[in-house]
């Protein structure tokens, strides 16, 4: 695996060029050009604010900020998985005719989505400062750590999905269905605390349910973004549970393992792609 990584480093210019191409092609054909990347998160901010403030009438102050704070990393995950699913097939002409480390294809998709995510986070910070007037928190400094952990997770899953889709081309549909379920199972439009304080979950099962939410890197990471970027919230029946750094370390470890497993799986199959695409 280290030899494969060294080969990726040798081909880093190709990786960079593919990321730049992906960004360029995406914005070149649209009228708004590069600003489209900012309009998209802005529209999401606006929609989520309207829905939760005026339609759902959630009592927790600034609830839309908490939703958005989890929604942006969720979008990063979702787009990385969906876009990378077809990445090898999309580049079949390259795969069939030229040598290069195949993992560059899904990796470039994840990286170009990382760029979108960082741009969206920029918009989010402006929204926090100008609209909500939140204070700058010292925990913002930990943001790169969480982003890096998520990058490992996304890339690992992208390796699995992109590789499997070469051999079973309905994987991308399966991924779409699984992701739409996962959206509701991940604390995005609700808070992780709402599970902990829920009266509906029988006490006997509660440690299990809460445990699943804490051990699952995706649900823990979106919660971690909230804890780091936003002040704690206290509303009727819900008390803020501060970020558990042991669990963050665990999420880092799990994500690393998913990355290693995904990469090993991808490597074991990648030289058969040319025969299948």
């Amino acid at each position, binding site marked *: 695996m280290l030899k494969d990584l060294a080969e990726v480093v040798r*081909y880093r*210019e190709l990786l960079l*060029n593919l990321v730049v*191409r992906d960004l*360029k092609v995406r914005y*070149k054909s649209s009228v708004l050009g590069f600003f489209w990347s900012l309009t998209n998160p802005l529209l999401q901010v606006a929609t989520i604010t309207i829905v939760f403030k005026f339609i759902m009438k959630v009592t927790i102050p600034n609830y839309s900020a908490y939703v958005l704070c989890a929604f942006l990393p969720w979008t990063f995950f979702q787009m990385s998985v969906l876009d990378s699913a077809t990445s090898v097939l999309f580049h079949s002409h390259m795969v069939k005719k030229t040598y290069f480390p195949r993992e560059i294809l899904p990796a470039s998709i994840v990286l170009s989505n990382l760029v979108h995510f960082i741009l969206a986070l920029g918009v989010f910070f402006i929204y926090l400062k100008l609209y909500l007037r939140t204070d700058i928190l010292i925990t913002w400094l930990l943001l790169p750590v969480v982003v890096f952990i998520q990058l490992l997770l996304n890339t690992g899953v992208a390796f699995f999905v992109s590789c499997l889709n070469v051999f079973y081309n309905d994987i991308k549909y399966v991924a779409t269905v699984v992701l739409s379920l996962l959206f509701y199972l991940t604390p995005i439009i609700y808070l992780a605390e709402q599970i902990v304080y829920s009266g509906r979950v029988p006490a006997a099962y509660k440690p299990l349910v809460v445990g699943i939410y804490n051990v699952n890197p995706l649900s823990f990471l979106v919660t971690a973004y909230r804890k780091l970027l936003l002040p704690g919230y206290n509303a009727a029946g819900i008390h803020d549970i501060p970020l558990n750094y042991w669990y963050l370390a665990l999420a880092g470890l799990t994500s690393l393992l998913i990355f290693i497993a995904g990469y090993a799986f991808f490597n074991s199959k990648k*030289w058969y792609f*040319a025969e299948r695409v």
Partner: protein
Amino acid sequence: MEAIIVEDLHKTFRLSHERIGSLKALALSFRRATYEDIHALKGVSFSVEPGETVAIVGRNGSGKSTLLGIMSRVYRPTSGKVVMNGRVSGLLELGAGFHPDLTGIENIYLDGSILGLSRREIRKRFDAIVSFAEMEQFIDAPLRMYSSGMVMRLGFSLAVQVDPDILLVDEVLAVGDESFQQKCYEKVREFQRLGKTILFVSHDLKVVRDVATRAIWLDSGSIQRDGDVESVLEAYVESTRSGAPDAK
């Protein structure tokens, strides 16, 4: 030291009759799918000295492209060994990494990095690439505005600028109009003068006679004849006439 060593190379492609290409098909396949193994290469061995220009001839489906594919590391051999000593440029397809929405300039950098050139190396060769392709006027226009001949010219021009020690070419020399083809052959001759190793697949026997210093005749995955161009071509042409290509 040889430029290329190929030792007892085998390649088997697995062709399934009911190809299971989806989870749905996998779930619905009650019995095991029947496979057929296609032996594209059956124990091919040869070696090439630096400076040789080797033409590979043979009918369609004889394994020529598979051989070139393995040498340029697109496929992995089923068994056997390939050693390439030096920088390899595989011309299996021109402009494999081109994207229609990007300009000629952007595509040069993108495709160049697929061929293994660094940004600095491309910048150094940029003028040579553009002028060889005769593209000065259109280089900042998006590729979709180009004619297919222009795309091919740009692809070829880029590929020869990689400055390889070993050039692998699959039937792509015949691009562009008469005068551009002339330029391509001049480039090949220049490579020969510089002592580079060239291995190419061609159906155009006139080109083989003009350019090659040695020919290998491949049929159903094994070498039928290997040697000087005239005698190999004579045997090959003879076999296609008699309609018994497998005859040794």
